[in-house]
């Protein structure tokens, strides 16, 4: 039996497919449920957010143009990669949040299955929320749902992994790209999840993950004119009004949700209706 010193992970941000440190140089402490020091994840700044939005915007046109089949394949691969690394996530969740192994394992199971569920939506959501419309005239009229662009999301404090997945997966299913602020108290699963993303053929910039404080980052998300929509499920209800006021400047579509259902996907899509005459 040796007293081997283990090599501890450095937790950085995930922007544009790479793992940069915060430009602010700041970190904060994450302690275990028992109060022991675990890590110093980055305390992201508004400039990190700015950079993440640039990456997300650049990634949007390619991700949006990818076939629904391709997006589904990638989401499924994310599930494959996560399944293969269950143990690591279970340990991390138990360490940081103090939950039992059984509970942590359940969160992993639900997380993988949730990703698989969203993977199956990419090529079906259009059949549900699109339509041909029988207008009263010689026109072919159809409604296609399309992605909006860049969506900012605030993940809930808990569950730290499943909550993050519910924050990002429905957004990217339809072709949006996302910048998400992870749980503040339990950010480590999010950053380990970024490693899963980095090995899943997900194009750079489609998902960007920041760790830091909601009160610092959320207002900058709300006021950013190149963010098209927000998912504020992770923000306490009393802060919603202020975010919506700030978001009104570019009429952001701002939503929050209680659970996973296809409405979460449709909420971040725009319906486009086209008229075309039918005639010789």
């Amino acid at each position: 039996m040796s007293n081997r010193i283990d090599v501890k992970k450095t937790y950085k941000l995930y922007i544009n497919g790479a793992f940069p440190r915060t430009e602010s140089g700041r970190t904060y402490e994450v302690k275990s449920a028992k109060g022991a020091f675990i890590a110093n994840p980055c305390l992201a700044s508004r400039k990190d957010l700015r950079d993440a939005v640039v990456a997300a915007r650049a990634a949007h046109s390619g991700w949006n143009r990818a076939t629904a089949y391709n997006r589904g394949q990638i989401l499924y691969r994310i599930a494959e990669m996560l399944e293969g690394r269950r143990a690591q996530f279970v340990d991390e969740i138990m360490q940081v949040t103090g939950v039992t192994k059984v509970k942590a394992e359940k969160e992993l199971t639900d997380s993988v299955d949730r990703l698989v569920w969203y993977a199956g939506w990419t090529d079906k959501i259009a059949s549900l929320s699109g339509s041909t419309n029988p207008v009263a005239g010689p026109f072919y009229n159809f409604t296609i749902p399309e992605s909006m662009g860049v969506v900012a999301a605030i993940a809930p404090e808990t569950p730290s992994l499943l909550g993050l997945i519910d924050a990002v997966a429905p957004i990217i299913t339809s072709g949006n790209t996302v910048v998400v602020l992870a749980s503040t108290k339990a950010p480590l699963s999010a950053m380990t999840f970024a490693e899963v993303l980095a090995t899943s053929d997900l194009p750079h910039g489609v998902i960007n993950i920041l760790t830091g404080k909601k009160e610092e980052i959320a207002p900058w998300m709300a006021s950013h004119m190149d963010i098209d929509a927000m998912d504020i499920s992770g923000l306490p209800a009393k802060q919603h009004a202020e975010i919506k006021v700030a978001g009104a400047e570019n009429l952001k579509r701002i939503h929050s949700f209680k659970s996973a259902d296809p409405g979460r996907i449709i909420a971040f899509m725009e319906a486009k209706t086209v008229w075309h005459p039918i005639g010789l």
Partner: protein
Amino acid sequence: MSFEYAPAPESRAVVSIKPKYGHFIGGKFVAGSKHFPTINPATEEVLSQIALAGKAEVDAAVKAARKAYVSTWSKMSGKERGKYLYRIARIMQERAREFAVLETLDNGKPIRESRDTDIPLAAAHFFYHAGWADKLEYAGLGTSPKPLGVAGQIIPWNFPLLMLAWKVAPALAAGNTVVLKPAESTSLTALLFAQVCQQAELPAGVVNIVTGDGSTGSLIVNHPGIDKIAFTGSTEVGKIIARAVAPTKKSVTLELGGKAANIVFDDAPIDETVEGIVNGIFFNQGHVCCAGSRLLLQENVAEEVLHKLKNRMEKIRVGDPMDKNTDVGAINSKEQLAKITELAAAGDAEGAERWSPTCNLPTKGFWFAPTIFTGVTQAHRIAREEIFGPVLSVLTFRTPQEAIEKANNTPFGLSAGIWSEKGSRTLWASQQLRAGVIWANTFNKFDPTSPFGGYKESGWGREGGRHGLSAYLKGVSHE
């Protein structure tokens, strides 16, 4: 000086074909009792011996499917069923090359088609339906639609693995178990698929594969233990099946023959149109139910289009299906070759003008050169009967209305093509055409999300898309 392409054969090494096969029942490979040979139609080489399932084997398969349905599959959540289908899709993608080579050897279609079209679409079909398994409440059939039970599925020889995917994937996604019979001349990829089911650890009896001929199919159709029949094949057999199940409670979907009109208007994008005409009838040697077998040319551009079509046909490479540069492969069987030859002779006899480019056809195997008949009218046999080979009948029309009338003047209604750069006319024509699949400025395009099936005598029901699910589910009130 010319640019001759040296032979570019795909290697056979990736497949290993057993000298003899049995059936896949209850999750195991079981020996067959009687056998018949399956050959490579390009060379007439015997590839293997395939088992002929009789009453005992069909009974065993239905029993295994019922047991699996009652004890396992109908109790399993859609979420878990879906994950089995994802596994199957993944393994098919992994073993794609093996499937492609096997399909080409058994069917005679070019390796480029198996590799680039058949196999990827088959895997995509499983991928798509995997995602429906836990979303059935959104299929438009009510909040909790139910599966039908045990499905008996009989598929044709023209797209063996793809037709298997079109049948098995939605059936399983919807919660049914299946007994599937591949076509007698093309059973090998179905038997390889059985191996994939084992690798995916699919519960025993959910998929059962019994091989055989028309008699085996008949046993399945008439088996009292089967709740639903799905058949793809000729209209003639489809009617036999419809009559057989009429007095029973079985539901049935049929995907039958076609004699599609491919309509070319004078403002069509001409070079791409010629490609589309060629794809429409010579892709897969014309063994396609939805083939564009009647070319309807607007009379004022007929000469120009035919001239370009003939020039283009000179470049079609007919030959060894295992060569990566082959465009058109072998006719699937001696019987099919005889049918094509007979109908083509009828074309000559009825006064149509036959033309083929010069082709060096191999001496062994079953081959038919790509052929067009001009001067065809609606009254000719080659304008009415499905040839199911690389033979195109060319007719003309003067006005759009006349095109539609001629296109619709058939008991079939599977597919149609429209070539024009005018959007309103394309939409108008698609509105008028009595066909279940309409391609505009393209042809023979398939996708798991896109429903496929025919009007009139081309069949009942649709496969693929949200619409295709209703074949395997029942709403509350449907009897």
